């Protein structure tokens, strides 16, 4: 997989040779190393969890892992696009808060569920577009622009409501979290998925295809490698960068739908710190924070690592839930530092 999906690097293409040189192959290995590490960590965590607490490798734990983290997977796919270009989107958590509060209130006000869901997704797109325009047309740094959108979305959500808004029990939006049995195990040990999980899987597949098989995806990698080179090559840099922030916002809107349907309520403080989770998922999955290298599937593994970590913390019971953000932040820092060490080593090899 790593060979076929290896992104174009920013360096000038060498003479056309049918076989990649040794250093090229080494480079590909190095860029995939964090993803492989994340996969190993995931497998290691499953083995450790099974050995220490038991009841990890069974249908209901694994399907709960997917059901409870489908929104995070969706966010991570969107953020992969953004981070691959060397940008960042800090607004995703706040976008979810605004979108879900607005959606629940509209639905309770008698709107057709399809219309409410559509508005929820479009709110995400619109806020993504605002970030994109600020960044692309007004030269605002991505983290400042998306920070402003984050405060804006959080503020708008607080304007709508500051108390938990409960979705009506008979609302059709709740059907999106209906559990579909695939394998009927003994007692509660069933393999179940929800429409939310299906949405996440579809988004992962589409994201993978777009990123690795289309011109748009190639442009995303090229911008991350070197924006200047991409512009000089005549690639549609402006449209692409605008596009990725709209994609990230839209996926945040979809994540809001998935999360709200599962929880059945929304509040203005929903999603505080989710931008950190999503960034951590992407970075754990092997995408460089500086852009240009990374994989969608890696981000999925990253999201699952974080989800499994939560399961293990709950099972353990000795670690307080307040520690979760500290641990997530610590893991993120370790991986970012690992990236820098690898990047420095690669620079050393090239020199």
């Amino acid at each position, binding site marked *: 997989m790593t060979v076929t999906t290896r992104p174009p690097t920013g360096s000038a293409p060498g003479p056309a040779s049918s076989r990649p040189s040794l250093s090229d192959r080494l480079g590909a290995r190095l860029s995939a190393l964090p993803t492989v590490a994340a996969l190993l960590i995931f497998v290691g965590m499953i083995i450790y969890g099974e050995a220490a607490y038991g009841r990890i490798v069974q249908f209901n734990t694994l399907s709960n892992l997917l059901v409870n983290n489908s929104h995070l997977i969706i966010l991570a796919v969107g953020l992969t696009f953004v981070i691959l270009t060397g940008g960042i989107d800090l607004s995703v958590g706040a976008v979810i808060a605004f979108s879900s509060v607005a959606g629940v209130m509209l639905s309770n006000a008698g709107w057709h569920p399809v219309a409410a869901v559509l508005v929820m997704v479009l709110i995400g797109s619109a806020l993504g577009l605002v970030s994109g325009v*600020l960044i692309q047309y*007004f030269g605002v740094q991505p983290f400042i622009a998306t920070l*402003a959108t984050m*405060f804006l979305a959080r*503020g708008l959500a607080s304007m709508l409501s500051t108390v938990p808004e409960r979705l009506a029990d008979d609302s059709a939006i709740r059907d999106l979290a209906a559990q579909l049995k695939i394998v009927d195990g003994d007692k509660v040990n069933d393999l179940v998925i929800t429409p939310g999980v299906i949405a996440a899987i579809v988004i992962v597949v589409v994201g993978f295809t777009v990123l690795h098989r289309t011109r748009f995806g190639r442009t995303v990698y090229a911008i991350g490698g070197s924006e200047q080179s991409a512009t000089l090559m005549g690639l549609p840099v402006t449209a692409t960068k605008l596009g990725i922030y709209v994609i990230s916002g839209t996926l945040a809107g979809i994540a809001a739908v998935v999360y709200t349907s599962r929880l059945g309520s929304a509040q203005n403080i929903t999603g505080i710190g989710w931008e*950190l989770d999503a960034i951590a998922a992407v970075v754990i999955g092997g995408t460089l924070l500086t852009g240009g290298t990374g994989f969608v599937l890696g981000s999925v593994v990253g999201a699952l690592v974080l989800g499994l970590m939560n399961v293990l913390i709950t099972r353990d019971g000795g670690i307080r839930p307040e520690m979760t953000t500290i641990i997530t932040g610590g893991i993120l*820092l370790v991986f970012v530092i690992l990236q820098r060490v690898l990047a420095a080593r690669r620079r050393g090899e090239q020199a």
Partner: protein
Amino acid sequence: MTDVASRIAANRGAIVRNQAFWGVIAIVLLLAINVIKDPGYLAIGYNDETGHLSGNLIDILRASAPILMIAVGMCLVVATSGIDLSVGSIMVVAGAVSMELLRGMDGTAGNAALTLAIALGIATALGAVNGILVSVVGLQPFISTLVMMLAGRGIAKVITGGQNTTADNDSFAWLANGYVVGIPVVFLLSMAIVALVWVLVRRSALGLMLEAIGMDSRASRLAGVKRRSLQLTVYSASGLLAGVAGVFATASVMTVDVSRTGYQLELDAILAVVIGGTSLAGGKFSIGGAVIGGLLIATLDKTVVFLGVPASATPAFKAIVIVVLCLLQSERVRNLFRNRRALRAQSQKEVVPA
């Protein structure tokens, strides 16, 4: 007097273009709105028994103290083209540490001083962690401080065990609620700290070096500026100032609210800095501007409450102001204005010879 007036007239263009000037105008406008609602708004009372001044203006000054602290810290960080998203969380950690310590101590002044030292020490250490991650490890500032922003609130919850701790210590509370010559101690302290920072950075080459890092970190290194130690210092200073703000914020009620103390105050700090004319792209900063920005935010918060406007709308309004100010700072909008000004000058020139 006429000399000053003529100098003001000569520099009118420069003053009008200075963003801090617009901050002052905004403060005056907000106060004017309050006066329309209640003509006695600006009145300052004097209590003969205690010798305290009282009134809405004094309240505004008192409320501005924590904002001034984090705004000045943010100002220095932004000058190096960094950002510190963790100020609100460092505030709550400092508050949590002081309340937890004071809860188990006698209410003596010595204990208050000890607590203050420990709380500020921990706040500085958290700032230094940011600084090390940015300067030595070389992470982007927003990532390191974002981690600290979210982990910091976690740390505060771990310290208090998830509770909102309350404590009693008159000396500690005096920091926030006391008066010296009729003026709140908290405002005098914050002004003294602001003045100290101003002297340190503007009466030495320090401020220039910070701006050099913000303009071009490579060029500044070649010019002999010690980037690493300066960045470490700036982030530590921001942590220390946030710690002071946290002490101010918790000492006034002697309670730390782990989910609300300092919540979203990084928004206020960034807004104050931007209102003061400091560019978020780095390379220049104005401490005076940040002070005006901080006073404006305190005035705005008080006005919103006074007018009975739902306070939930203020964060969105502040965010929109940040977006607008960012737009005004952007190259594209500046060019637009410059072109229009150039066009106007041109048309005037064409008229004159005719």
